[in-house]
């Protein structure tokens, strides 16, 4: 049985206070781990290779700033991919959420921000299919409300299948969850009850 990744990244030890807290939602805990396994140790990779899964994950995790998930996923990359991803992370770092709403009363809340495109060097190193995935992942991470059917068409045009896009979307969206649970629990562990 694999170690629970959220516990590992949040530093939750067996028998600790937060171990007890997480045990109250054991289905959520176990199925967050099962989600991780189904994305990163799938029975069969199907339309998304393991290289693609970890490359996108390393990119997405690092875009979330100072999280132990970043070295965790980057550590699964070959050196050449790790270097290429690190360069794209440096170019893609920003803060969100931003983006546009459908035209109307919410338009006053429209917030411009970086529309990320992979560098020529990154595209050469990673290939066009993976480059398209990183561009889409950046939008999902920072400005998901800018999503469109055109963005999905760009993935199809780059060689993604419909089922591959579903897996890719789940992977990025799952990481947005996993990284936040880890972030939240790390803060909670560092501020024990009665400390304030």
């Amino acid at each position: 049985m694999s170690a629970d990744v959220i516990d590992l990244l949040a530093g939750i030890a067996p028998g600790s206070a937060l171990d007890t807290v997480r045990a109250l939602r054991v289905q959520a805990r176990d199925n967050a781990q099962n989600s991780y396994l189904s994305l990163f140790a799938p029975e069969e990779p199907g339309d998304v290779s393991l290289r693609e899964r970890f490359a996108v994950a390393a990119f997405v995790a690092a875009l979330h700033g100072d999280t132990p998930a970043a070295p965790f996923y980057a550590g699964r990359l070959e050196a050449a991919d790790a270097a290429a991803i690190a360069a794209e992370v440096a170019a893609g770092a920003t803060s969100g959420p931003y983006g546009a709403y459908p035209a109307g009363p919410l338009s006053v809340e429209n917030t411009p921000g970086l529309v990320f495109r992979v560098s020529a060097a990154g595209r050469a190193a990673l290939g066009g299919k993976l480059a398209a995935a990183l561009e889409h992942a950046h939008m999902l991470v920072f400005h998901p409300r800018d999503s469109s059917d055109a963005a999905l068409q760009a993935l199809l045009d780059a060689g993604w299948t419909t089922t591959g896009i579903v897996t890719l979307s789940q992977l990025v969206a799952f990481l947005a969850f996993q990284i936040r649970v880890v972030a939240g629990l790390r803060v909670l562990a560092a501020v024990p009850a009665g400390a304030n």
Partner: protein
Amino acid sequence: MADTTISQTGHNAPVAFTQAELGWLPWLEPFAETLTERHWAGLVDASRAKSPYFMLLVRDPDILQFRTKTDKDIFYNPNAGLPRAERELAAAAASRFNGCIYCASVHARFASHFSHRKEDVQRMLDAGVGADLGERWNAIVEASVALSATPPVFGAAHVARLRAVGLDDFAITDVINGAAFFNWANRLMLSLGEPELPSK
């Protein structure tokens, strides 16, 4: 034939946050073949075979199954922690902040139903996550929003404010799980299709 997207036109798209029951139209073809045992396990509830959203996600049945079971325990498990109304408030706040009109509609409606505070919930939808909802709800909304920022900016001050309004570590973990989960859900609902208003 290569896969293509679906252009949705002619529907009545919402342009504001609402507690109305919205529909959702996919931009990619839902799964159209015969469902296997694995697909049914992915759907978890057989009734979800009627939903274009779940029928699209069921193309990867395993992650759908585990996503759904994670979701259900975070929001429905009645054992201790945060009252259901406030788990839904955390979900609605994350959705309002990220800009997911569909997700916000569902979970604002649930928050209203369980809290009987529909007007307060609507104020958050209308004015945004800075609306004054009273100290306890403000603390929950603020924490959910801080965790939803990318990168997250959730810190010790958020925990302190939640403790000050009476949340124990079980309840604070429900805020964390509820807001974090909607950072998953929002990104799927926003990026794979679009909402529509019910026909009059």
